[in-house]
């Protein structure tokens, strides 16, 4: 006897019920696929290139600044290969509805340190040569229909310039990325020009980027850097890019907790409901299993059959659910910038597999026990 035939016969015995159960399972796994990656965001929104780069930020506050002289001191720390910096430029582009990050960076050090940004050498040259140069990521270029040579006008907020006018930049390049940790909506502008022309705060930067000689010493070097500035007016917190991003996500702290509460409630409800429905369907079919037993099937075989059927059913719901969530996450990133960097990775898949097993196990617990105690003659009499 072919196992597959028996399995699918059981599964499609009542196609309506199977489809509906699949639907409620799919909705549960859709939520797992949507919410679990958000939870993971707090754990590993990270840099795929490993910890060979550090970010030095003001210890005092995310929104504070560091004196650019810190970069010189940090360059002298053993194990540090290169140093660069970036400064939040802010401001408003066009009507301000589609905001994207704008950073002032030094041309000579920032791009060599971030090879995952793909930029033509012509654009790199132009950025270094032209004081008013700017580059934007592919997504922003597409959204606003920008092309090289366009003039970009940014109305300042935090950084008024010395003439109290809007800032003007010339677009010299559009960058792409070789991994998905690069923000393809960002705009970069020339730090030298920005520093000279801003009305206040000359010599202040938001973060200092540190490139390391090797990957193994990140922890020690972070400690050394922070110790150099301890008890000064501009204390630092040095961390990997991954932990730096986590620091921002941490600001949402309680909401992360909230999502886990919701996820818990969703899983509890749906596991209970599904397990109940599956078990209910199996109970109705005890007589059929009695027939199988009468035909000479082992007790264990019928129990395995029930387990296989439950697993197949749960998988039937889980797969489309996860698939739809992957599509929704992809679409959602277009509209909700906060979702950037979320995808359904190995951890979510592992969690889903565990969940499939748990729900299937819960569902077959009761039927399997009944099969163990099945009284063949009594059940056959009900037919």
């Amino acid at each position, binding site marked *: 006897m072919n196992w597959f035939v028996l399995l699918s016969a059981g599964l499609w015995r009542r196609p*309506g*019920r199977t489809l*509906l*159960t699949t*639907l*409620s399972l*799919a*909705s*549960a796994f*859709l*939520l797992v696929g*949507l*919410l679990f990656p958000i939870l993971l965001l707090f754990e590993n929104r990270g840099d795929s290139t490993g910890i060979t780069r550090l970010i030095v930020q003001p210890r*005092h*506050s*995310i*929104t*504070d600044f560091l004196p650019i002289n810190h970069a010189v001191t940090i360059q002298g720390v053993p194990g540090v290969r290169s140093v660069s910096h970036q400064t939040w430029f802010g*401001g*408003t582009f066009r009507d*301000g509805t589609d905001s994207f990050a704008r950073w002032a960076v030094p041309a000579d050090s920032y791009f060599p340190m971030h090879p995952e940004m793909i930029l033509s050498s012509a654009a790199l040259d132009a950025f270094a040569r032209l004081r008013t140069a700017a580059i934007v990521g592919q997504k922003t270029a597409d959204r606003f229909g920008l092309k090289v040579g366009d003039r970009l006008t940014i*109305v*300042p*907020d*935090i*950084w*008024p310039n010395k003439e*109290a006018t809007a800032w003007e930049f010339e677009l010299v390049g559009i960058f792409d990325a070789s991994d998905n940790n690069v923000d393809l909506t960002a705009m970069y502008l020339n730090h030298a020009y920005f520093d000279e022309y801003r*009305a*206040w705060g000359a010599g*202040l930067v938001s973060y200092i980027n540190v490139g390391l000689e090797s990957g193994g010493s990140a922890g020690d070097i972070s400690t050394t850097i922070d110790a150099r500035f301890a*008890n*000064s*007016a*501009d*204390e630092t917190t040095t961390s990997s890019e991954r932990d730096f991003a986590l*620091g*921002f996500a*941490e*600001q*949402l*702290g*309680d*909401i992360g907790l*909230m*999502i886990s*509460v*919701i996820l818990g*409630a*969703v899983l*509890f*409800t*749906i596991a*209970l*409901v599904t397990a*109940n*429905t599956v078990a*209910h369907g199996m109970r109705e079919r005890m007589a059929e299993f009695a027939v199988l037993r009468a035909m000479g099937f082992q007790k264990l075989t019928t129990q395995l059959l029930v387990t296989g059927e439950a697993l197949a059913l749960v998988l039937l719901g889980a797969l489309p659910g996860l698939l739809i969530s992957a599509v929704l996450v992809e679409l959602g990133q277009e509209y*909700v910038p*906060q979702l950037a960097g979320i995808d359904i990775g190995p951890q979510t898949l592992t969690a889903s597999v565990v969940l499939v097993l748990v729900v299937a196990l819960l569902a077959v617990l009761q039927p399997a026990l009944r099969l163990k105690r099945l009284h063949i003659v009594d059940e056959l009499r009900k037919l």
Partner: protein
Amino acid sequence: MNMLPRQILAVSLLNLATLRSRSGSSAVVLTGIAGVVFVLTALFAMANGLRETLQSSGEEDRVLLLGKGSRSEINGSISRDQAAIIAGLPGIAASRLPGTTPVPLLSAELYATANLPRRNQPGRAGLPLRGVGAAAFGVRPEVRMTNGRDLLPGRFEIIVGEAAARMFAGLEMGATISLKGVDFLVVGHFTAGGRATESEAWLDVNVMANVFKRGAWLNTIRLRLESPESLDMLTTAIMTDRRLANSVFRESDFYNEQSESSTRLMTIVGVTVGIIMAIGAIATALNSLYSAVSARTREIAILRAIGFSATPIVVSVLVESLVLSFIGGLLGAALGWLVFDGLSMTSMGAAYSQVAFRFAVEPELVLSGVLLALFIGFLGGLLPALRAARISVVEGLRSAA
């Protein structure tokens, strides 16, 4: 002709009376729907609470001035010269203490955030810091000291909102906190009637300008209008003065917009989760009620055979579904209310700083939860009800009980 209502009543009551024999599948419907309503109650109570806190923070007759192009206080850039010019513009209310010259009710302030350890939670979060002068209190009559005293000019002192003191560790009276390498002594706590201001800490504006190296630049100006209608006059005066370039926000509009953007993510999450869970709950209800109908095949056939029409059968199935979903909805909302109402929580407010608020489970929220439950119950019950109506008397009677 009053047979029909009587039949409906009789069959529905009979149906409900036998619910207990189908307790398993009834519980499944109930749990599924209660789960949806519970989760939605939690999510929307959170969004409601944050929205209420932010919206109650704004006044019609108060105005926020930022640098031109700024949308949040942290990004504002206003020079002290500009602040002095603005203080002389028309439309601004003046203090009228007897025996003194009237002073315009205007407070030019610095704004920053400090990264401090949270209380009872790992990690650090942003505390909003505001550099103020004595005028800050005149502009905000809702702010009252509850403990200690007001700031003295020129001192390294800080006063802390009560919500901020609850959110962060080490902001008790007499504690010191280090900001930019300088120790500030906590000399007082203040309340602002639960508004967003209560999540802030204040220090002397001139001390802060020195310690934070802000030079002659301020972030934000708050002022009181003579009346809510004076805004146009003030805006025109600012627009026509070439020395000034400011964004002007009525404070209530400013906080409304902030509450809009802060709750946007929660609303999106809430609606998405709600729709998906509702689909799951409808599928569950359909499943259970189809089973219930098939279990009652013989009973329904007998009813039809002794002269009951199809309508009472249909209605009875719908009634069963609606009663179950009503109970489920109430249960979910009640659980949400018990667990979450009044629970205090923090979320990200302006500029990566924390704002404290309380969950608000309001009657409207409970009502919409129950309505949603009934909607799910109706959809889940409709198709099984129609199937019940189509049960053939002959085949139904022949089927096993």
